[in-house]
């Protein structure tokens, strides 16, 4: 597989430069074996000439730009989606993740592309961060033929098997048992892939979550349970729904360790997520990562969010915004100017606009698609007959 080759080559360069240039290159190199006989080495951060250091971890200029640009891309993409929804081009439910971008991007930076990931209906940011085609994601929102699931799922059901992204689940908490199933498969095949299973502060109260914590811990499944604690489940604030509001403690009865992370700081998300992934990958079983965050928009496009004060929203939006935060860090370190960020933003907005245009230009699915992908092994002589009524 190309991916492994690229990784190995990159790693070899890193190792060589480590020996040639003492002080350049750091971290422990862990070898992870994969079932295809190939081998890959865990990601490590490299010290380049410039970059940022956060809690002893170094982030290259290149990495910082990559993370910043993706966060900003998600922000602008969601804004565009909101706009298209307002124009009635997107139908049904549409849940935006403005404010939560650092989680999407920081986690992806820490994860291996081979790691599995699944989440709820608030899924646009995660699938974009995984590297899926934005035009296909937008086309899905618009119900187009070239949508990432062919226009069958819409906003809530984004899937990309190539990127190991398994949804996109509309039933609150449903993805959590499914997530441990991916972890089970990984352990069964001993292929060292971790299942990153994401849920909300509302989803955490589903019984299925605790069934999953128990089995994952019992069988030491490689699962990182991520809780996006954005303080609200629709209009219900966490204190009105949860007796124990420190959600990272919810695994205690199952011996699942947990940690709380500032989900508004992409570097912190990357750092803590790396720790969590290492824990799960090394065979120590599941771990909970509670990401403290906030959604700037309503629960879905139809929610004016009157259950919270403007002051509260502003406190997060202007005080803790993850994109502004990274921009400031980079400007302070002399890695970028405010002017250049403004220019970047313009470029991204333009890119998103052209993605939206391209998606909109696509046709709707062919009517015959109605009957596609229901059954794999169709039985021609038996009723209900494939592809027909009655």
């Amino acid at each position, binding site marked *: 597989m190309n991916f492994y080759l690229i990784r190995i080559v990159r790693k070899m360069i890193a190792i060589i430069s480590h020996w040639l240039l003492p002080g350049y290159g750091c971290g422990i190199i862990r070898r992870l074996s994969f079932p295809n006989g190939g081998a890959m080495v865990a990601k490590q951060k490299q010290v380049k000439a410039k970059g940022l250091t956060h809690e002893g971890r170094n982030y290259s200029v290149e990495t910082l730009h990559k993370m910043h640009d993706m966060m900003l891309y998600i922000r602008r993409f969601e804004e565009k989606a909101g706009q298209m929804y307002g124009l009635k081009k997107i139908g049904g439910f549409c849940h935006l993740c403005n404010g939560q971008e650092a989680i999407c991007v920081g986690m992806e930076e820490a994860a291996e592309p081979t790691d599995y990931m699944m989440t709820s209906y608030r899924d646009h940011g995660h699938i974009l961060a995984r590297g899926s085609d934005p035009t296909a994601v937008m086309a899905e929102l618009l119900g187009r033929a070239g949508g990432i699931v062919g226009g069958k799922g819409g906003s809530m059901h984004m899937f990309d098997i190539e990127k190991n992204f398994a949804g996109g689940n509309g039933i609150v908490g449903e993805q959590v*048992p499914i997530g*441990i199933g991916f972890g089970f498969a990984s352990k069964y095949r001993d292929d060292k892939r971790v299942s990153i299973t994401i849920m909300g502060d509302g989803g955490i109260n589903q019984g299925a979550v605790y069934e999953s914590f128990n089995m994952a811990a019992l069988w030491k499944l490689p699962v990182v349970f991520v809780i996006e604690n954005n303080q609200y489940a629709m209009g219900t604030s966490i204190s009105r729904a949860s007796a124990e509001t420190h959600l990272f403690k919810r695994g205690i009865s199952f011996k699942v360790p947990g940690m709380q992370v500032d989900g508004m700081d992409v570097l912190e998300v990357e750092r803590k997520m790396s720790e969590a992934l290492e824990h799960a990958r090394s065979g120590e079983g599941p771990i909970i990562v509670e990401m403290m965050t906030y959604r700037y928009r309503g629960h879905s496009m139809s929610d004016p969010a009157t259950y919270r004060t403007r002051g509260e929203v502003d406190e997060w939006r202007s005080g803790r915004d993850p994109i502004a935060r990274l921009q400031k860090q980079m400007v302070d370190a002399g890695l970028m100017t405010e002017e250049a960020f403004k220019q970047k933003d313009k470029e991204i907005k333009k890119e998103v606009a052209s993605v939206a245009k391209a998606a909109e230009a696509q046709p709707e699915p062919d009517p015959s698609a109605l009957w596609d*992908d229901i059954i*794999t092994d169709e039985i021609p002589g038996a009723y209900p007959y494939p592809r027909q009524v009655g």
Partner: protein
Amino acid sequence: MAKITYREALNQAMCNEMERDDRVFLMGEEVAEYNGAYKVSQGMLDRFGPRRVIDTPITELGFAGLGVGASMAGLRPIIEFMTWNFAILAMDQIVNAAAKMKYMTGGQYSCPMVFRGAGGAAARVSSQHSQALENWYANIPGLKVVMPSNPADAKGLLAASIRDNDTVIFIENEINYGDVAEVPEGEYIVPLGKADVKRAGSDVTLVAHSRMTGYALAAAEELARQGIDAEVIDPRTIRPLDEATILTSVAKTNRAVVIEEGWRFAGIGAEISARIMEKGFDDLDAPVARVTGKDVPMPYAANLETLALPSVAEIVEAARAVCNRN
């Protein structure tokens, strides 16, 4: 051919499939160390080890979902429900996840897996442990529903279900587990979606699945003594349904009785009789009759339980009625 029990036949199917495909594993409550609540998985832990025969906590929604995820990741889970009564707790994973995954993902992911266990009325266990709910699953696009009525079919259909690339709801019958009959040895496959004529006859068609197939065969013997030659058809797969076999039979007999253990309203019999009306109306000499479970929760008392279930006598009576012999 050796004579073995229905439960041994199921066991053979699982063991054969696990021998030939490492992706297949069995998971459920008491399947491993206890050898199965109904001993269907007898000896499988010893043979395949704890990696592939896995006891779970009592957590149906959780392990059903685990199976869904594992199947999406490329394994071939057999998820055993101790009985289908408990699968009600797992309904979300079956209906919202497994059944819809292929469609909802535009064909990217699918859930090739078997949910199996004991269904139908058991004996003297009252309302919560004694019911036939196959119509729930048969209603849902994306699922296949399979119900064997004898040991040979149990083996062949389970093997076919494990190899099938869709989600199969495989409903066994608790009362039938001890039934003994000849079963082909070694690899044996009964294709899904194919009904079986269990008894040929010319006067009336009796359509019955699972345990009711035996009842229909007993009724046919009684009817023969009364001069009525009944044909008995076991659909074996409920969804998708081999209606051609049923319609061909009705074209010959011109009369039909559909029998099921489950409740009448929106039941399997309602669907089959509607199909006969839609597709075989001109062949009918009498309205299709249904014999079903009574519209009550299952009671415990022996006499009431008997009254709640279909009986051979009721089938005989219904068949006589459609033949204008009452």
